[in-house]
């Protein structure tokens, strides 16, 4: 009977960064439209493993539950994705949950992604305004350009593109596709464009665009379908142009 249907979830547990890891299995009551987050809430309510052992609730990050905040990225059945949009009915069982591997572990499924925000600072990802006082509207922008820019601006900083990128690893400072995409976005804006040179200088620095080897895993992993390989290539072109002949136009 559907009412008795159980879901089997296997989770990699680790109490802290320097602690040993172990796998735990949970048998949960199926309900319609469940996602992986609902499974984790069930475990928090009844933290007992399949074999009847008492355990602790699983640590994980989540906020919006509708794939717009980027918080709940994890590896589900071997694939890096958001947990809120991972619907149980679409997943093979046992559902296996692991933390992202390219970021320092905090606990269980929670990792520290602050390096992405640090790199946004390094790559000067903002449009500087003179002040919040009123000096009239911003520059005119065509609807076509807005459509392209808007699409790129939907990046939720989930980190999935970094997780799947072979050039993001312990031996590399590569900032990753998400950051390069932001550079492209800010260079597209009329005011942002005024400062493209400093962004492109930064992006030619450590961990910058030259580290991209075109593995093209990023674009497949992006939950927002952002054309990341296009952005990587575009920023690469801009960076080279700026280095070679940018001085003529400044």
């Amino acid at each position, binding site marked *: 009977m559907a009412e008795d249907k159980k879901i089997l979830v296997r989770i990699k547990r680790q*109490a*802290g960064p320097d602690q040993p890891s172990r796998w735990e299995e949970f048998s949960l009551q199926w309900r319609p*439209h*469940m996602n992986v*987050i*609902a499974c984790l*809430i069930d475990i*928090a*309510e*009844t*933290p007992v493993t399949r074999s009847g052992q*008492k*355990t*602790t*609730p699983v*640590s994980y*990050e*989540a*906020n*919006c*539950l*509708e*794939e*717009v*905040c980027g*918080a709940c990225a994890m590896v589900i059945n071997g694939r890096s994705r958001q947990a809120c*949009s991972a619907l149980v009915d679409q997943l093979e069982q046992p559902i296996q949950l692991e933390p992202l591997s390219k970021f320092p572990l*905090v*606990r*269980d499924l929670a990792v520290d*992604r*602050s390096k992405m*925000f640090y790199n*946004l*600072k390094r790559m*000067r*990802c*903002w*449009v500087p*305004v003179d*002040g*919040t006082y*009123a*000096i*009239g*509207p*911003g520059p*005119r922008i*065509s*609807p076509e350009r*807005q*459509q392209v*820019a*808007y699409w790129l*601006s*939907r990046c939720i*900083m989930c980190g999935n593109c970094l997780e799947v990128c072979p050039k993001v690893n312990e031996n590399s400072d590569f900032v990753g596709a998400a950051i390069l995409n932001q550079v492209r976005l*800010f260079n597209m804006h009329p*005011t*942002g464009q005024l400062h493209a040179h400093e962004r492109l200088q930064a992006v030619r620095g450590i961990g910058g665009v030259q580290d991209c080897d075109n593995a093209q895993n990023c674009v497949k992993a992006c939950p927002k379908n952002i054309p990341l390989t296009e952005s990587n290539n575009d920023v690469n072109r801009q960076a080279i142009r700026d280095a070679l002949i940018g001085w003529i136009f400044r």
Partner: protein
Amino acid sequence: MSQSRVILIGGGLAGLMATIRVAEMGRAVDLFSVVPVRRSHSVCAQGGINAAKDLKGEGDSTWQHFDDTVYGGDFLQNQGPVKRMCDAAPGIIDLLDRMGVTFNRTAEGLLDFRRFGGTLFNRTAFAGATTGQQLLYALDEQVRLFEAEGKVRKLEGWMFVSAVMDETGTCRGVCAVNLRTCQVKTFPADAVIVATGGLGSIFRQSTNSVACTGSAQSALFQQGVHYANAEMIQVHPTAIPGEDKCRLISESVRGEGGRVWVPKTVGDKRDPRSIPENERFYFLEEWYPKYGNLVPRDVATRAIHKVVFEEGLGIDGKAVVFLDVTHLPREMLTRKLGGVLEIYEKFVGLDPRDHPMKVFPAQHYTMGGLWIDNEKQATNLPGIFAAGECEYQYHGANRLGANSLLSCIYGGMIAGQAAVQYTKGLESGAEAVSSAVFEGEGKRQEEIYERLRTQEGPENPITIWKEMGETMTQHVTVIRYNKGLEAADAKLAELQDRYQRINLADTDRWGNQSLHFTRELGNMLVLARLITQGALLRDESRGAHYKPEFPERDDENWLHTSRAAYENGKFKFQLDPVDTSLIPPRKRNYKS
């Protein structure tokens, strides 16, 4: 004072805007957020932000915007601040434009505007159907620049637990806990701005994010900050029903021509697309010919409730109605509503371009919040300011769609400025206050945490949270009966008692999510009771607050802000006059 700092609690739109203003005015900022600020709940806002820029040749004006807002709020707002907000709105949009928000554009390259609920004018600027995301990111980026310049220190992953008050009753800083390490620490500041958003978690069936617990507001209330119009809770008419979350389907869907309907035949088994027009009941259009599908939210929600529960016309007898966009051009839907339709498709599995969406009302916003004065966003405790959804100022008894993004940013600007002015007026700063004051508060909070961590009993925090949500949704949302409210308050009191016997399965200090959730749960229960008792007190119907036992608005007795103070574990309510000097109250009737 060279060391003068301002603390910001909350990094959503209101918190970030206040941060920018404070940093711009030269004060150092410590910005606290439980999540990385870019993941704040503001990111979920979809439809747009209002400003009467009148770029559609309609003869719109900031006065009209003001009137729509006050009428929409059923005249419960103090009007001065609302007028100033509407007057400031065009300048705010311009600022966001300059910051690079990817607003939709017209052929002339200017900002595009659409229609929204409770108005007949196109004054809502939008970025697809994910406007909150683009606005939040723009402010996040501005703050990052200040961070790079050393003017802002971000403390992400820290949760506010209490304000540090000195013996004169002045706020001198905050006490916060690190969510990862469980370290409890006090932070001195000359002013504190609270921008901690909504409280949907109290209702559980809500469009809000997980972090929206209202815990910070509740903690401050328990320390003496007054709370106003707690009973004014907005239930949004169109959300995808769900156990873990009710996912919002923006009002902008109706703004672009989406239509709400149910089949006239109960239990009609046909594919909805094959049901002919004359067999569809477009109830909002029939009952409200002037505003149609864009009546304000409280009106739309009650209409849906009536159709489903009184007339028994819910689809397949269930509590759902159709929100239909299948008749609209596909290209336009993608360009203007893409993000919202994507959510429906991802979580329900059907493309709204081909299938009418099934939706139902869900708790969404609180008009009520921390009481603040009319000029400075200042609470009744010196040194504490509030901005955004967590304060009560701008929306009265019902908020118009696309006014929240505006009130958050406007309120943030005012609060930031006022907080800095306040710090300039202080005789002495936080650094002159005895360290015993800070140590005392830190110790008090540590003891609370230690008690929670080690207490024993049979109760689980998630179970108590679920029961609280069920009670609140059943008795304290769309339709309120005094008996139901009394029953809800009694249930909440029982939950407060059971709370003392929660046993945390996890007593670790590192990354212990359930410990911090449980800390918040105690505060949520207090706030839930405040909302319930506020609703019990107000014996009239106004805006979103509807009591069939008192179905009319009663200005003579109830044109008042219901303002609550916490005294010895009980709530003391007073009724404050409302300033309606600019627009005299008139009957609120969207039928004509």
